[in-house]
């Protein structure tokens, strides 16, 4: 089983999650392969973000197993959990920057926790990562409350990327960005993935992102993954919701 798991970054089997008497996921299976960008789509409230939170350990599943980088998340020790902090990066929906720190200090938090670098080098890394996500270096001295939603998201991504993690989780990365910004974001994710062999788990609503970025797409419906595969296969999958989603008026525009 270990040998099979080797090219799998995230392996979910029989996942069940829920709040009170409301069940979000029921018997959900999903594999994310190393070095791929997997896009998870689903209707509003279908539990896409909950799935992401379950994988990174913020929500405790009721049943099932989640293995991330060959580590069973339910049996993870506290030390190991700290180590994972530098192996994965997470971009939350609104960036989740620490409001009492400047953007630059925010980006340096993972560095400070994991290694000892001089101020000069940390600043250099900060400016580089800000430029990576398309922000001016001056932004480093501002506080999150002075930034727009799109800028906060970019700064959040810079923080998630600062240690070049193996795994990147993105929760609606392009929501709230203008089309130009969103396209640049897509290109950035693609570029990073190709240069660093990043594995990306991406929750999105954005059909453009799915087309531009994702190697595979997984459709979450009714608490399970109904289909997962390359976009062109998923589009042909015979399921009413999938057909509605990809071949509805908005999906068709893309095909043209």
């Amino acid at each position, binding site marked *: 089983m270990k040998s099979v798991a080797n090219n799998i970054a995230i392996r979910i089997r029989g996942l069940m999650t829920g709040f009170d008497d409301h069940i979000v996921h029921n018997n959900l299976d999903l594999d994310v392969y190393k070095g791929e960008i997997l896009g998870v789509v689903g209707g509003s409230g279908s539990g896409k973000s909950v799935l992401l939170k379950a994988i990174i350990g913020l929500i405790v599943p009721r049943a099932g197993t989640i293995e991330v980088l060959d580590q069973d998340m339910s049996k993870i020790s506290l030390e190991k959990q700290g180590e994972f902090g530098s192996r994965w990066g997470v971009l939350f929906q609104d960036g989740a920057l620490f409001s009492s720190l400047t953007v630059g200090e925010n980006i340096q938090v993972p*560095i400070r926790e994991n290694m000892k*670098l001089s101020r000069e080098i940390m600043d250099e890394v900060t*400016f*580089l990562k800000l430029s990576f996500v398309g922000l*001016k270096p*001056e932004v480093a*001295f501002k506080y999150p*409350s002075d930034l727009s939603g799109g800028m906060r998201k970019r700064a959040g991504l810079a923080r998630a990327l600062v240690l*070049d993690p193996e795994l990147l989780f993105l929760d609606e990365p392009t929501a709230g960005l203008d089309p130009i910004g969103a396209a640049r974001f897509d290109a950035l994710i693609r570029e*990073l993935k190709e240069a660093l062999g990043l594995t990306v788990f991406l929750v999105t609503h954005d059909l453009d992102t799915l087309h531009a970025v994702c190697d595979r797409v997984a459709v979450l419906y009714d608490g399970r993954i109904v289909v997962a595969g390359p976009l062109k296969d998923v589009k042909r999958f015979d399921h009413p919701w999938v057909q509605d989603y990809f071949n509805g008026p908005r999906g068709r525009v893309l095909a043209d």
Partner: protein
Amino acid sequence: MTAVKPEIGLSGSAGKMALSLTGDWFISNAPRMDKCLKSTPSPAGKDVTIDASAITAFDTFGAWLIFRLLKQMEAGAKSVSVIKLNPQLQRLVKSMSAHDVSPPAKPIEVGFVEKRLKALGWLTAAMCSHYGQLFAFIGFVLVRSIKALRHPKQFRLTSLVFHLEEVGFNALFIVGLVSFLIGAVIVNQGAIQLRQFGAEIFTVDLLAISHLREMGVLLTAILIAGRSGSAFTAEIGSMKIREEVDALQVIGLNPVDVLVLPRLMALIFIMPILTFFADLMGILGGALMAWNMLDLSFEAFFTRFRDATLMTTFYIGMIKAPFFGAIIAINGCYEGLSVTGSAENVGQHTTRSVVQSIFMVIVLDALFAMFFTAVDW
């Protein structure tokens, strides 16, 4: 991850310079990489060859430093050629030119004294504008209240009833308990002091006057400021940051009518009732303590109580109650509506609402004391 240290090997002959890069070019090795870069001599007028075949691993920061090395070489060398660069790394290094921005100047940091002075200036300005706006808000609320009185049908009765339950009924327990205990404490301490000159019976006078006139209503006001004033700020503040207040305005509803007036009316109406309840519980606590400590029967206690208390003492406490309620409600709602931006701001305004309310209640209480003394009550 720090297995192989990055190195730059240097060799070469006249007019030529060969660099070989080895090791893991990771961010965790950044200090060493930086040192290597800085110790690489100037390539002035030489043909530089960079051999990258022995780089075992790299990340984006490593790529950035290789880019910096290239730039450093290109600045002086006659020619620079890179050989055996991993195609992935080559792409990454190439893409770095887009990120080659000069670091910005840090914002100027002012000196300690200057900083404090500036803060003091801002604070003064903020205080002035705060009180100016608060009075403007009181005026606006008054205007809307008069309008509401003239069109009572438009008044939000459901909302009023909801807030009455919230600030009134649900507060009964804590107000009653605190008053009961304070009444008992006044009698307990008063008895100890007055016993020294055999005037224990005056403990009843002490309790009657202090509790009915000041303690009952003040305690109630302070509890309500902490309990309901803060809740008003937090409720309205979170509505403000979720743009619910803007939505009200756009729909054509006045936020003051919808959010402030029901809360204000509820507190003005409920404060005298809570104060009356606090008076009763305080006296009950005092009576029990007198019975326990002084062996004073309930009959004796209440006979003495009736003789010691003028109706005006009771009225003075009750008259103040609706004014305190109004101050707490207006402060709470004003702070709630002043919230801007983030959730952090809600917390700041909630704190300020409570502190301001208690402060203003006590100031007003002092003014009332002066007034009642002047009119000989």
